[in-house]
């Protein structure tokens, strides 16, 4: 599915990640932790082809990312749902259109899609905000809309970068619950976060593995979490 093998990534003359090997197994639940600036976002971007490694290999759905052109990368992104901390929307389109954007760009229509757009908005609790514009949404609503957009194409993998970073505790629990539900549906979920309480809650419900970035390397964290 997604595999990083001895990956290194340098930026601005300094090495941010070094000798990273990670393989995301289908249907698994992962957390990626580490201090701010450790490279969590960079690692996530490597996982969906937004960045290319400076050394090593990144394989996305059995294809080495270096051998993929930009159109191939676009196709890969249709199989990977991404939720960013700084959620990006098209501010001139209502929430429903933003959530359906992956369908639009892939030439599919909302009616023909797997998950029904209405059901999806209901699932994330945004039915009554479907016609609102993104700037009118609260932080939590934006994150839920981003999650709905990330899963509308029924992706195999969902990558979430600090999805609870800008929301209160209650909302972070709600978002986590949605991500856990996705995992129970068989999706692979990787959440980059430094919120340890979130990890503890998740571990009480699923077999979540925790990867920690430390000294530019990724290690499987122990049971202390």
């Amino acid at each position: 599915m997604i595999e990083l093998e001895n990956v290194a990534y340098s930026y601005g003359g300094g090495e941010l990640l070094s000798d990273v090997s990670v393989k995301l197994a289908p249907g698994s639940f992962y957390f990626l932790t580490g201090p701010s600036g450790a490279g969590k976002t960079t690692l996530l971007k490597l996982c969906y082809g937004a960045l290319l490694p400076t050394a090593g290999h990144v394989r996305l759905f059995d294809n080495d990312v270096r051998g993929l052109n930009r159109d191939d990368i676009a196709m890969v992104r249709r199989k990977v749902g991404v939720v960013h901390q700084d959620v990006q929307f098209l501010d001139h389109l209502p929430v429903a259109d933003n959530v359906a954007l992956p369908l639009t760009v892939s030439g599919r229509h909302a009616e023909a899609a797997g998950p029904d757009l209405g059901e999806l908005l209901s699932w994330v609790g945004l039915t009554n905000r479907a016609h609102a514009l993104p700037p009118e949404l609260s932080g939590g609503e934006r994150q839920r809309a981003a999650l709905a957009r990330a899963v509308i194409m029924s992706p195999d993998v969902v990558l979430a970068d600090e999805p609870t970073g800008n929301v209160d505790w209650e909302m972070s629990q709600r978002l986590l619950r949605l991500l856990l539900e996705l995992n129970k549906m068989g999706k692979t979920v990787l959440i980059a976060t430094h919120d340890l309480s979130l990890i503890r809650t998740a571990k009480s419900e699923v077999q979540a593995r925790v990867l920690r970035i430390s000294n530019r390397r990724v290690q499987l964290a122990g049971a202390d979490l």
Partner: protein
Amino acid sequence: MRQLRTLLQNLFAGDKQADRIVPPSGFTAQLTLFAAAAMAFLAVFALALSLASGRLATRWGDELARTSTIRIVAPDGQRATQTEAALRVLQTTAGVQSARALTDDEQQALLTPWFGGNISLDDLPVPRLIEVIEAENGFDAAGLRLRLSAEVPAAFLDDHTRWRAPLVQAANRLRLLGWVAIVLIAAAVAAIITLAANAALSANAQVIAVLRLVGATDHYIADAFIRRFTIRAFLGATTGMIAGLLAVLLLPSAADEAGFLTGLGFQGASWLVPLLIPILAAGVALIATRFAARKALEALR
């Protein structure tokens, strides 16, 4: 042909949903519309100039190539005799289809633009003019001059070659200038639309980032911008073309006594030629935006 049809279908039918992904941007939209309209307006005049010059060159070339003039410069008492003698020479000259002396009224009409209509030819030492129409193969001008100098000493042959060639050349140059102007106008449209498209793409870097995040291909993103600019250029150019045609229509109509400028315009089927201007503008916009989009998307990796 099929590719062209697909391209046109994509352009004008398009994907309504996809069209909405590019936010409406006031500045670049107005710039594109205005530039296309202004340039189309100018293109109509350049086209009118070029077509009118072409007609003029053809007319001057055809008419003057087949006619010559003989001037009879003789005192009053001998002018009629010399004229008849010259006409007799012309009747027996191979390659002359017809020849006739201009009447007093015709000669007066020729002088009227310079001296007004109230003059009498008797008051002026005006030579008698003989119009000679050449047959298909033409005549031997040098041989005719020799015969006239021997038999009609007061007659001077002017076969128009002296000033016909520069006139036709000037008209042809004018026609060429018209086409050069059209090419320059197209280049200016391309440059302005490239700038406007670049500005729109830069202003929408965030939109492009979001589209890429959700799996849009560069082709899809570029098409959305190309469609937007091509349709704007087409609409702007259509407006400019209609305004240009109205302006040409309102020019004074050509008359016998009028000069070249009043003949500037379109005649018959040539009124349809300006209809190509919006299509050309749309084509230029399509190529310019595609070029700009390719470069911008490459830079926004």
